[in-house]
């Protein structure tokens, strides 16, 4: 340690060199960021592509051409069955792939592109509903009749009341962009009147979410920083230390993102949490440094620059580096997550923490070197110092924290009650990746989505992939009947707005071949008939449509359910309902699997939850191990994790009780428990240990620790909470949750450390389980410093 002190002391004597180096590095980072600052908004990029569920889904998506669709709803105040509206539907259907390269040619589904399978007097026809919009009233009524008698479009592409029509356009993977969305909106606006045009669909919701979240965070970040600066100024009463604090968090963040840029790691939406973590943690390091320096100055008013630097470093290198290294390793545990962006988050947050530690250890001594020891504004220094000492003594006499220290049972009971309540709440934590839930209820996106969900099948889709053990199985009546039965039963759920499968084709063909008699609206009763219908359909229609529901070998079928909600929790219940058919299908040699974007989001959410809990548990173990090594005591290793445990439990408990769903952003907030909890625990234990070694009695050491470390902890919590409280006023609901949860985590970490941890330490100490152990490993060097 002595060598590090010498080294840092030497460095502080070269302020120009150090500042130039820092400035150059920071400029380099900022330049790299400026060049690479493109946010990865494609959610597919978050998915672990090697996971079996994803591999299967991707394959099924390719097989059946399953793509996320943009939904364009055109609504007329009276009826869409008029020449102008029908012409607009035709126009949009034709123009979309021409105007927008994102939209795949031939992927449009609308009343204009749909095939109408009918039986006329003279035979079977598969023809469009209309090519040129009819103008005569009789023709319009005839078209309406055609639509209403064909359940393959009625209620699907035209609303049952005839006032709205839907145009579906498939997007190539990851081709949604802000420009595309804006162009599409402009195009829709051009065509509006008297109709209203709505644009909805999963790509819009996901794209807007990925864009708006970070944008809102960017807008809020400066406000967070300004507010935090004000609070720091008020608390620290030092412009110099406030500025250093800001430099630490800003450069720490720049370093994390700069390194991402240099290593060509894309920036994901979850990475907006990196600055959040680095601000909370960086400010903690700064405040502890500030506290130590001012403490030393007060104890020794005439201390020289050199002495001050040395003593500060001697007192702080150990706790600051221990805290930083432990936090960094705790974050690094996130690389066990199956989700790539979460791994990167852990890695680069850890790097940022280390950079912040180095900066805190260099910049404060450097400031002393350049600007001298912190000056007091008071003219009569001695008087001031007397006053301060007196104040401290008075403070000690008042025995700060006595309410805590003297009532261990009450505090313990309270803490136990809160923890128990939080544990109950934790069990209620629900995972939800409803993207839509992230928007304000009165936002355009939500209104559009509600409209489409009211008039049509739904904006989200679940694909059920049925795979048979041999070819041609899906021509068999028993298989088709079961498929039809399951489809009908599941569609009865109110949240399911529609469904589509081979069974629909079969029923339609059967009915049409029997003059559309309702009793023939069933699946064909023999395999031959099914095969011949399929052949007939291929001979007379557009075989591409069939490729969406059945594969070439009639072995794998795709059943699509349209859902009126994009909540993964809703999808999970539907999946569970579908799974009740597992055995019946298994008896026919058919397995049920799932596919599609919505399903992948669900699997993703599960992985996220599992991963987060696993990494959190791992971090917890790592932190306990490191603390054990650092303090050479298993007991302290365990005790030291109290603030982390309490914070994590209360965090999840509050989420459960308030119904905040676990999402990629909220899941990562619990990591703050590690970063801050470790920091608080180490500083508290270290400070207390040193006081005890200096000869303080247990109670006095506790009071003194609460005055000094306690103050630093409270300052840190207050500054970070105050800053992030701004997010509560964000227009973006998930950012409000982030703000609220960070404030909560800071408060709980601080409270947990200053009450429970403090009490447990003194309790252990009273039983001789604390100092006895620590004495064994004290190195003379430390002892010497502590006694000065």
């Amino acid at each position: 340690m002595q060598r590090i002190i010498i080294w840092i002391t030497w460095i502080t004597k070269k302020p120009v060199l150090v500042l130039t180096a820092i400035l150059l590095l920071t400029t380099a980072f900022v330049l790299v960021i400026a060049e690479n600052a493109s946010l990865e908004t494609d959610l597919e990029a978050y998915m672990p592509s090697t996971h079996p569920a994803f591999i299967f889904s991707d394959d099924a998506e390719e097989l059946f051409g399953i793509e996320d669709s943009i939904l364009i709803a055109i609504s007329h105040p009276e009826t869409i069955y008029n020449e102008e509206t029908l012409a607009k539907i035709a126009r949009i259907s034709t123009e979309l792939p021409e105007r927008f390269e994102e939209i795949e040619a031939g992927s449009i589904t609308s009343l204009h592109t749909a095939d109408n399978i009918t039986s006329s007097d003279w035979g079977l026809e598969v023809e469009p509903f209309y090519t040129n919009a009819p103008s005569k009233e009789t023709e319009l009524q005839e078209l309406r009749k055609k639509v209403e008698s064909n359940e393959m479009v009625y209620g699907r592409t035209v609303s049952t009341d005839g006032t709205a029509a839907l145009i579906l356009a498939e997007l190539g993977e990851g081709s949604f962009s802000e420009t595309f969305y804006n162009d599409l909106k402009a195009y829709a606006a051009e065509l509006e009147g008297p109709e209203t045009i709505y644009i909805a669909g999963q790509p819009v919701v996901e794209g807007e979410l990925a864009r708006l979240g970070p944008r809102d965070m960017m807008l809020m970040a400066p406000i967070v920083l300004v507010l935090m600066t004000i609070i720091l100024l008020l608390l620290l009463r030092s412009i110099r230390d406030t500025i250093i604090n800001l430099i630490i968090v800003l450069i720490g963040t720049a370093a994390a993102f700069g390194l991402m840029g240099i290593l060509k790691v894309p920036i994901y939406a979850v990475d907006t949490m990196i600055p959040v973590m680095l601000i909370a943690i960086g400010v903690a390091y700064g405040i502890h440094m500030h506290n130590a320096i001012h403490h030393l100055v007060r104890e020794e008013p005439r201390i020289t620059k050199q002495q001050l630097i040395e003593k500060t470093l001697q007192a702080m290198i150990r706790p600051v580096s221990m805290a930083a290294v432990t936090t960094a390793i705790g974050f690094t545990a996130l690389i066990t997550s199956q989700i790539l962006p979460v791994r990167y988050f852990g890695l680069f947050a850890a790097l940022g923490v280390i950079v912040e530690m180095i900066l805190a250890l260099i910049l404060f001594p450097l400031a002393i070197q350049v600007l001298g020891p912190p000056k007091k504004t008071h003219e009569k220094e001695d008087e001031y110092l007397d006053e301060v000492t007196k104040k401290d003594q008075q403070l000690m006499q008042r025995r700060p924290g006595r309410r805590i220290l003297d009532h261990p049972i009450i505090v313990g009971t309270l803490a136990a009650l809160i923890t128990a309540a939080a544990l109950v709440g934790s069990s209620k934590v629900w995972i939800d990746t409803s993207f839509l839930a992230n928007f304000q209820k009165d936002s355009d996106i939500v209104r559009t989505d509600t409209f489409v969900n009211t008039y049509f099948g739904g904006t989200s889709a679940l694909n059920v992939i049925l795979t048979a053990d041999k070819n041609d199985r899906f021509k068999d009546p028993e298989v088709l009947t079961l498929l039809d039965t399951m489809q009908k039963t599941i569609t009865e759920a109110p949240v399911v707005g529609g469904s589509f499968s081979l069974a629909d084709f079969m029923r339609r063909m059967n009915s049409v071949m029997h003059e559309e008699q309702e009793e023939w609206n069933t699946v064909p009763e023999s395999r031959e008939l099914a095969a011949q219908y399929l052949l007939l359909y291929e001979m007379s229609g557009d075989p591409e449509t069939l490729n969406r529901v059945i594969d070439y070998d009639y072995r794998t079928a795709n059943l699509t359910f349209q859902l009126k909600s994009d909540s993964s929790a809703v999808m999970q219940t539907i999946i569970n309902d579908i799974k009740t058919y597992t055995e019946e299908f298994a008896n026919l040699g058919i397995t049920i699997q799932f596919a599609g974007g919505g399903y992948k989001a669900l699997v993703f959410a599960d992985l996220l939850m599992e991963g987060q809990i696993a990494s959190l548990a791992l971090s917890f173990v790592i932190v306990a191990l490191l603390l054990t090594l650092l303090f050479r005591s298993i007991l302290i290793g365990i005790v030291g994790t109290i603030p982390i445990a309490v914070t994590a439990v209360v965090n999840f408990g509050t989420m459960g009780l308030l119904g905040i769903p676990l999402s990629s952003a909220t899941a990562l907030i619990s990591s703050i428990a590690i970063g801050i909890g470790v920091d608080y625990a180490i500083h508290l234990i270290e400070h207390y240990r040193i006081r005890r070694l200096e000869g303080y009695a247990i109670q006095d050491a506790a009071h003194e620790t609460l005055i000094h470390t306690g103050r630093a902890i409270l300052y840190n919590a207050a500054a970070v909470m105050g800053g992030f409280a701004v997010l509560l006023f964000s227009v973006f609901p998930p950012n409000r949750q982030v703000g609220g949860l960070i404030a909560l985590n800071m408060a709980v970490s601080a409270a947990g450390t200053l009450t429970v941890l403090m009490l447990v330490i003194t309790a252990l100490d009273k039983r001789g389980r604390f100092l006895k152990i620590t004495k064994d490993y004290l190195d003379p060097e430390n002892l010497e410093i502590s006694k000065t």
Partner: protein
Amino acid sequence: MKKPGILLFALILASAAAAGTLAARTLTGMEVMEHVYTRPTGDTMYAELIMTITNSRGSTRDRSITQYRISDDAAGIEKKIMFFTAPADVRNTSFLSWSYTDGRSNEQWMYLPALRRVKRIAAGNTSDSFMGSDFTYDDMGERHPSEDTHIILREELYEGSNCIVVESRPKDSSCPYSRTLSWVVKDEWIGLKKEYYDDSGKLVKTLNIDDAKRVDGYWVIGDMTMSDLQKKSTTRIRMENVNFSRSLDDSLFTERQMKIGPPR
């Protein structure tokens, strides 16, 4: 952006061709394609077809069909009846078509044995897929040369045959292709290869004739493959046991026969 370049290229080729080897000839592109269209195909024909459709994932659908054709040039009518022999679940499904040379649209019927009913089916678009394959009705030889404009690009040796390369551009802009190139064997008037280009000038489909032979004096394409380069699917049609000498009765091409099945 690409279009002018290709146009220019085509123009240069065309003018070079006009100025060069073909300058002395009187044969026009239209004449070449007329020759191909009117190449004698016999008054009757019996053939066994095997159609193999392979999709981008390598899955295949095989269909075996027995086909009879009768042509009455005087009446301007061609009748075809096809009986599916495989796969088993569509055996005896039959397909009847009457096509007219006077521009009337085709009439088509289908008989489903499982339903015991004959259904007339709409003729649809000639650019529609033929039996769900990569061939369209146009590709099956039903496109009249007058629907396109044709120019001869060059003559070249293709697979040992002296071929005229004809470029055809549709007159109707709604056609899915902007142009096609055909390799036609000189004086035999049989095509050996055809390339289809879309609006942006990209090659989207190719037709390769892998086996063409004379049977009873008529040209028969024994093996051809259409490849859709975008869908990455192929359709191979093989024709076996071709016979032009059978005398076929008009009563074979009726709804009644569709139900009875192929004659013994």
